[in-house]
C-alpha cells in the first residue's frame, strides 16, 4: 500500500462511518431507500389501519368506524382523502387530498386522525 492508498482507505472509511452515524445524512445520500409513503389511520385513540401509499395501482377505498359512524377514505398513489363522513361539519371532507409527510386530516366529531408518516420539512404547522 502506498501512502496515497492509505489516505484513500481512510477517506472511504470516514464517509462510511459518517453515513452510519447520521441517519439524516444517510437519507440524503440514498433518498429512495426511505421514501416509502405510508398513512396511519387512528380512530377513537387506536391505530386501526396503516396504508401503503406507494402502490401505483389505481384507487381504493376503505371504511373507518369513528365516533359518529362509518367514514370512507379514498387512497390513490401517494395521496389519501376523506371521501365521505357522517360528521355534521364535513371539515375533513372539504380538506381534500393530503400527500406530504406530516400532513394530516382530523375529523373532530368522529375522532379520526389520518397522518402521512415520514420526515416532514417542519416540526408542526400553525393554522
Amino acid at each position, binding site marked *: 500500500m502506498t501512502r496515497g492508498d492509505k489516505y484513500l482507505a*481512510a477517506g472511504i472509511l*470516514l464517509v462510511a462511518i459518517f453515513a452510519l452515524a447520521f441517519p439524516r445524512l444517510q437519507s440524503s445520500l440514498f433518498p429512495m431507500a426511505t421514501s416509502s409513503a405510508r398513512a396511519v389511520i387512528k380512530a377513537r385513540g387506536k391505530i386501526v389501519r396503516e396504508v401503503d401509499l406507494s402502490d401505483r395501482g389505481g384507487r381504493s377505498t376503505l371504511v373507518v368506524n369513528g365516533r359518529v359512524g362509518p367514514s370512507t377514505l379514498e387512497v390513490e398513489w401517494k395521496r389519501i382523502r376523506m371521501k365521505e363522513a357522517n360528521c355534521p361539519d364535513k371539515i375533513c371532507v372539504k380538506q381534500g387530498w393530503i400527500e406530504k409527510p406530516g400532513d394530516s386530516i382530523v375529523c*373532530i366529531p368522529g375522532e379520526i386522525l389520518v397522518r402521512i408518516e415520514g420526515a416532514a420539512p417542519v416540526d408542526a*404547522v400553525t393554522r
Partner: protein
Amino acid sequence: MMEKKGRYLLPLLLAILVVAVVAVPLYLGKEIEYKSDRFLMDTMVSIKAYGRDEGKLKDAVTAAYGEMQRIADLSDRFPAPGSAEYKASDVCLINENAGIMPVRVHREIIDMLLLAKKYHGLGKGAFDVTIGPVMDLWGFTGNNPKIPPPEKLAKTLTLVDSNKLIINEERQTAFLEKRGMKLDLGAVAKGYATEKAVQVLKSRGVARALIDAGDNIRVIGKKSRNAPWKIGIKDPRKSGGIIAIVSLTDGSAVTSGDYYRYFESGGRRYNHIIDPRTGYPASANMSVTVMTENAGVADCLSTIFFVLEPEKSLELAGKMGGVDIFLVTADRRILHTPSLKGRVEVKSGEDYRYDQGR
C-alpha cells in the same frame, strides 16, 4: 525513531476520530421521543415529549392531558343544562347567573377572565369574552351559520361588554351584570390550557417538548442542542400549503384565520371571528399568527390582531415587546414585525406580495 512515530500517528488519530464520530451521536441520540394525541377541547391535541425515561415521559404527558381536560371541563359553554358536564362547568354557572348574582368559581377561571379583561383593554374592544350572545345569533356555534337581521344584531350587541364582567379576586367570584350576557372563552381557553400543560410537563422534568393543540403550537426548549423548532404557517388559501417557516424556542405560535369556520353568502366570506365593536366578522386579514412565550396570551392576541387593521396591529405589537406577529392581509400582503427578520423564511410565491425591505 522519527520514522516510527510518524507511522503510528495517522492510525492513532484515525482511531480517535472513529470513536468520537460514533460515540458522540450515540450519546446525544439517547433521548427518546414519546408521542401521543387526544381529542379534547373540541379539537385534537398532540404532544411530543423528549427525555431518557419513557415511563416518566408517558406519565408527564398523561398528566398534561389531564390538566387540559380539567380546564376544558371548567370552561365548556355547551353541555346540555342539567347534565353532569353542565354542572361541572364554571362558565355555565356564570352565564346562568348573569344579572342575578356573583358566583364563586375556580382559580383558573378567574385567571382566564382577568387575562381576557386585560386584553379587552389593550385591544380597545377588539377582543371581548362576553361575545357569547352574538356568536350564538350568527350560529357559528352550531352547524348552520347565517347573517342575522341587523336590528336583532344591534340589540344583541348591547349584551357584549367586558366592563360589565365583574371579577372579585379576593372572593374568587365572577358576575355578568346584565341578564342575557354570556361568556365565550373560545379565544382564551385553549391557549390557557396549553400553558397549564406546559407547567405540568416542566414540573415533571420535561425540558424538550412540542404541544400541538388544534394547530396552536407551544414548544418547550429547542428542537436539538443547537437548532430551534421549525414551525410552518399555513397558506390561508392553499390547502396543505405553507406560506412561511418560523424558528421557535420556548414559545408559542398561534394563528387566527378566516378559513377554518366560515360560510359564503352573496360572494362574501363570513368567518367566525366577530369584531365585538360592530357585531360583524372581521375582514381585514386572511390570517394572523402571533409568536410569544405564553400560549394563553398568544391566543388572545391572535384574535385582537385578526380584528384590528394590519398597520395598527404592527404598531401595537411593536410596542409590546416579546411579541412577534405575521399577517396575511385581505388584500394579499404579507407583513411582519421587524423583530421576525432572520427568524422567518417567507414563501410568498405569486399569490402574495411581500416587501422584504420593511
